[in-house]
């Protein structure tokens, strides 16, 4: 109860500050930060990394007009490549075009796809056993520090430097730097281990039809004294969530509701869904370095005051979220939209196809997409997977040729049109892609994309601990401060680094 009271107080404070001068300051600061931070978590290429990229460019220009895939693949004709991948659209799409690769090279391609948990089990088991069954493996970037540190996968720079194997149209400039870097560059000094293959990022989903409804607009203005608009900051987000939360029998857009309707859909399950969602808030409140978990020196900042405030805010949103959402992960959030019971959510862009699918969704064509509101820093939490070639792969060169081909502009565009999330700027900029409703928001969001602390091999366990205490906090088993202090202490045992903000509740 004390916690609820505190959250209420925070939000009342939030309402007030909407209308005082601080708002103008906050907006100005946000704008300035947006301009100056943009890719605030991105690290510039180091001289060694830049040297490699320059070398690749040089070889590519020498190879221009001389190199062909058919010629490069001659020695590997008859080889069968086995790929282990996630059960995702991004993996379904290339399979439709694999025959083109086989026709050109004589190399067969066989895919094995499994759901997330099963995929990771297979991947780690296979790597640990060193079977060499797979020539290409999709690795979630959460595991890249581990699999590169354990040398389960091999760097691909040697293939890039080999004129016989380098496609002159590799166009490395096409990759968004932070996306490629956090996904595929690991080690000291960092080396590329592949290219991004599945890279969703979080955006704002909202019900455009409701936001544009004249009755709703009028009512909102009466109640909050400003225009109903796509929330630009989290105070507005709270207002809109509160405004659209209605009981069965009340009216929404002029029609009587036959069931309860909610302003926002949150994911509260003890799952990475809650971690990813909350990390957006923590980063927006206190800065996006490693999702607001660690500082640049890997010291622990998870319990910084901004994060505590962000957690209190997140907990307060659950009063406008369906009661069942305390047990939701991301798929159920999508279902809630499809069933027309929520107005807004922070969601993964790759799920947008699902809410736009008229056969599955009651809100197809009624959705709007934008970047996540900004508290102080503009942010978008992204997840990513990397193509990798296992160290024990039996056909690494043939695997590289496939990797290069499947990531070529032409195939990447075709795959994006099949529903895969693009990672190349070329694909984003193509007219066919930019007209997809959520792509402009996605492209914009990627400018503010930040990763979780995937550079730490301990991240898997850290994420589990965070998920546990986030749930404990929103279930009111402990305060936001207690929960994050506890996370900080548990993380210290794992990482051995210092806690910057000494726990107040331990």
């Amino acid at each position, binding site marked *: 109860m004390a916690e609820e009271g505190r959250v209420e107080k925070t939000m009342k404070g939030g309402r007030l500050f909407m209308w005082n001068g601080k708002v103008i300051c906050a907006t100005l600061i946000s704008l300035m930060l947006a301009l100056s931070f943009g890719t605030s978590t991105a690290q510039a290429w180091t001289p060694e990394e830049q040297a490699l990229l320059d070398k690749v460019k040089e070889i590519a220009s020498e190879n221009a007009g001389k190199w062909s895939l058919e010629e490069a693949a001659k020695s590997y004709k008859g080889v069968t490549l086995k790929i282990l991948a996630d059960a995702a659209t991004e993996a379904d799409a290339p399979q439709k075009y694999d025959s083109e690769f086989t026709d050109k090279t004589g190399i067969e391609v066989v895919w094995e796809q499994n759901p997330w948990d099963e995929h990771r089990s297979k991947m780690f088991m296979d790597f640990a056993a060193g079977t060499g069954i797979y020539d290409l493996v999709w690795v979630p970037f959460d595991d890249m520090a581990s699999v590169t540190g354990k040398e389960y996968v091999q760097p691909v720079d040697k293939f890039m430097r080999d004129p016989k194997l380098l496609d002159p149209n590799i166009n490395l400039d096409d990759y968004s730097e932070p996306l490629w870097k956090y996904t595929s560059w690991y080690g000291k000094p960092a080396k590329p281990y592949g290219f991004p293959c599945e890279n969703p990022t979080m955006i704002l989903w909202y019900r455009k039809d409701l936001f544009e409804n004249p009755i709703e607009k009028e009512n909102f203005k009466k109640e909050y004294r400003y225009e109903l608009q796509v929330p630009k900051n989290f105070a507005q987000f709270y207002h809109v969530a509160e405004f659209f939360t209605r009981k069965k029998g009340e009216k929404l857009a002029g029609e009587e509701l036959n069931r309860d309707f909610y302003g926002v859909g949150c994911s509260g399950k003890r799952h990475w869904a809650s971690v990813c969602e909350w990390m957006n808030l923590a980063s927006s409140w206190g800065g996006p370095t490693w999702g607001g978990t660690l500082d640049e020196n890997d010291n622990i900042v998870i319990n910084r005051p901004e994060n505590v405030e962000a957690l209190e805010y997140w907990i307060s949103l659950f009063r406008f979220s369906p009661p*069942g959402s305390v047990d939701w992960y991301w798929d159920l959030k999508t279902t809630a939209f499809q069933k027309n019971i929520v107005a807004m959510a922070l969601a993964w862009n790759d799920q947008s196809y699902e809410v736009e699918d008229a056969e599955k969704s009651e809100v197809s064509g009624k959705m709007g997409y934008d970047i996540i509101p900004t508290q102080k820093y503009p942010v978008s939490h992204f997840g990513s997977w990397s193509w990798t070639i296992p160290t024990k792969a039996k056909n690494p060169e043939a695997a590289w040729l496939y990797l290069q081909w499947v990531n070529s502009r032409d195939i990447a565009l075709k795959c994006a049109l099949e529903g895969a999330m693009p990672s190349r700027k070329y694909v984003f900029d193509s007219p066919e892609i930019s007209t997809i409703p959520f792509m402009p928001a996605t492209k914009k969001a990627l400018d503010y994309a930040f990763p979780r602390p995937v550079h730490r091999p301990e991240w898997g366990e850290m994420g589990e601990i965070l998920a*546990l205490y986030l*749930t404990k906090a929103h279930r009111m088993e402990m305060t936001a401060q207690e929960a994050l202090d506890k996370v900080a202490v548990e993380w210290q045992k794992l990482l051995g680094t210092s806690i910057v903000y000494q726990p107040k509740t331990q």
Partner: protein
Amino acid sequence: MLGRKYMGYLLLVPTLALLVFLSIVPFVYALILSLRHLNLKIPRLSGQFAALENFRYLMREDAEFWHSMGITVLFLVVVVGIEFLLGFGLALLLNREFRGKRILVSLAVIPMMIAPVAVGLMWRVALNYELGIVTYLIKSVGIPLKEALLGTSLTALPTLMIIDIWQWTPFIFLIMLAGLHSLPKEPYEAAQVDGASRWQIFRLVTLPLLKPLIIIALLLRVIDAFKTFDQVYILTGGGPGNATDLVCMFAYRTNFKIWNLGYGASVVIVIFIIILIVTALFYTVTQKKEEEVT
């Protein structure tokens, strides 16, 4: 003669070999792993010898493990107790001939025949707060349900218990019914001649005669309930918080999410030892009581 003597042993070889490869070898391997610092995710933990450090941490410092152990014990005591009472009660009720008995018995065992994963998925849909049939029925009879049953610490564990009871009561029921069918008639006739009441017949004839079956049924259910994993994995993932983090879920997370195989192996060994002790105690106590009775 010699050939005949060894033939028995020879015939046992395939079974023993299977047992060795499927049980003993993995167990010994787990034991070796439990003495090492091995984490597939953390490069610095690459299998260094840890002596008993994993066990020391588990037993003395890991509060999460003991929390899991505590709720597992609570879970199994409640579910096995209720399943036994319901299953035995149903068996006594249906231990007579009537029309439609076969159909009723067949229907009663359906939950037990569904794979636990399917049970989990089925209940996940049924318990969905917004769209599930169970939630709808609860609300439609006027019970106020403010949050999802699996979404609060107060109701998540009891909900899992109810699902387990729904699925496994038929198991006890079937064993007890088969036992009741196979009981000899003579002791009952003798008791009736002696003028025993129905309660006395149940307490002094039926129960002692069914005792071996009861022990086996309870033992199997205790072991099985201790190993409950599928429903927890699908329905709650151990949450909310750690309210349903039964010990097998804890072991799964340690081994296959965090990939701390050394520590995970020590968790599994401790679970194994606990089950062994429970089984031994169960047998010793029941054997003793049997001896006292005879």
